[in-house]
């Protein structure tokens, strides 16, 4: 349930309500909005809602009917905006994260980072621990790969997102990454999600290939309830009977999740289609449908990529796509990558 305090509720009144709830075995998540304080209440204890609504300073008590609480719009009406350095995820600007599937060599990481930066990406993506379908495929360079990615990101003024596959990798990844990615295969790895809830690094949670939107939001709830409020979601295609694409990208998930939840929603058209020539149309559709960002695989030499070459874009294709997106975004009142020109202090 959600306890909405009155606009002028005093600290003592807020504290009395929190104490009342905690005594009854509930966890309280306090969020201070512009006008009023809202308390998100979760847990297995028993609380008399009528009693709470009569306490001093309480404006109203709402029941959250969805199984997920902290992730729901009822709990938090305004969009969550995650600030990482000078970028804001979930705001007016559509944030594009791009880069190779995996870090292969220093040259490859640097060349790709330079290319995606030039085109307007704000975040470098790349894996050092790779969850491959086959145990015989390239598994990633581990910490050496993380270092390559960090160096590449820093050299080109990009943030870094990388996949954490297992709780044991959180510590090492935290040394290098700005955002943790939880892959589709790990969406319901609840041990990992709980651990990430204790981390302070923002988390991007990919949708499982057979997960409903409700299950996906419940997974986000695991991270949120652990105390990490910087969670973003990423639609990356679900498994259907269709075989002409690797997965079926569920574009309709974007407006649905935006309605149900306050969390930023990304789309990964690379895994969503698995085919390089289908990435651009799906990226355009995602932006038009209201996605807060994109996660796109770009490789400086896709034909020789060690993994996911068939779905990785050439740098020139990615540049063209970004130019198209800069025209589409204004139609729905948003922008993409306007900052490189403003950074030099250009005002009037």
């Amino acid at each position, binding site marked *: 349930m959600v306890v909405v305090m009155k606009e002028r509720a005093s600290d003592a009144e807020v504290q009395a309500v929190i104490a009342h709830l905690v005594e009854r075995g509930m966890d309280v998540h306090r969020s201070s909005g512009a006008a009023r304080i809202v308390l998100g209440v979760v847990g297995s204890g028993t609380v008399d809602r009528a009693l709470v609504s009569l306490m001093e300073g309480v404006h109203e008590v709402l029941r959250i009917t969805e199984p997920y609480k902290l992730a729901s719009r009822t709990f938090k009406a305004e969009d969550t905006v995650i600030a990482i350095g000078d970028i804001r995820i979930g705001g007016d600007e559509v944030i594009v994260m791009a880069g190779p599937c995996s870090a292969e060599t220093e040259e490859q990481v640097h060349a790709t980072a330079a290319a995606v930066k030039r085109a307007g990406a704000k975040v470098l993506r790349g894996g050092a621990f790779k969850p491959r379908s086959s145990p015989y495929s390239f598994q990633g360079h581990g910490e050496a790969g993380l270092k390559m990615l960090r160096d590449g990101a820093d050299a080109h003024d990009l943030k870094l997102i990388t996949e954490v596959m297992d709780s044991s990798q959180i510590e090492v990844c935290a040394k290098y990454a700005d955002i943790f990615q939880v892959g589709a295969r790990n969406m319901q790895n609840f041990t990992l999600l709980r651990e990430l809830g204790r981390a302070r690094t923002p988390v991007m949670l990919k949708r499982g290939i057979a997960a409903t939107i409700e299950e996906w939001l419940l997974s986000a709830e695991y991270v949120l309830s652990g105390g990490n409020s910087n969670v973003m979601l990423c639609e990356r295609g679900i498994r259907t009977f269709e075989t002409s694409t690797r997965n079926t990208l569920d574009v309709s998930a974007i407006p649905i999740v935006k309605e149900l939840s306050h969390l930023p929603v990304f789309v990964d058209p690379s895994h969503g289609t698995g085919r390089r020539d289908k990435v651009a149309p799906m990226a355009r559709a995602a932006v038009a449908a209201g996605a807060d960002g994109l996660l796109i695989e770009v490789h400086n030499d896709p034909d020789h990529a060690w993994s996911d070459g068939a779905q990785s874009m050439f740098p020139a294709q990615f540049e063209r796509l970004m130019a198209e997106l800069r025209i589409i*975004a*204004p*139609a729905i009142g948003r922008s993409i990558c306007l900052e490189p020109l403003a950074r030099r202090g250009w005002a009037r």
Partner: protein
Amino acid sequence: MAAELSVEALRAEIDQIDEVIVRLLDSRARCAYAIGRVKRREGKPVYEPAREASVLAHVRDVNQTLGGPLDGEAIVRLFERVIDEARRIQRLEAARSDEVGAGNVAATTGQGE
């Protein structure tokens, strides 16, 4: 379409279109600004009459395929203003770099407009 929509609805559509036009003009101005930086670095002049002519020819061609109420001269008049502003941005950018001390600036600033 126009005959069935109310004036209020059409005005709302115009407001929405204007917002997109302003955002796109902003994008265009930023591109012009980035080109200005390259011109300064390479010591190229801000005013390039051949390029301006090709921009006007391009928009005239695109407009012709639409067959709308704006004729070729009208679209050219509108874009002449857009180009004026782009040139102004590039001239200011070239002048600003004086502070940074770029060596080739003096050679380029005089040639705008």
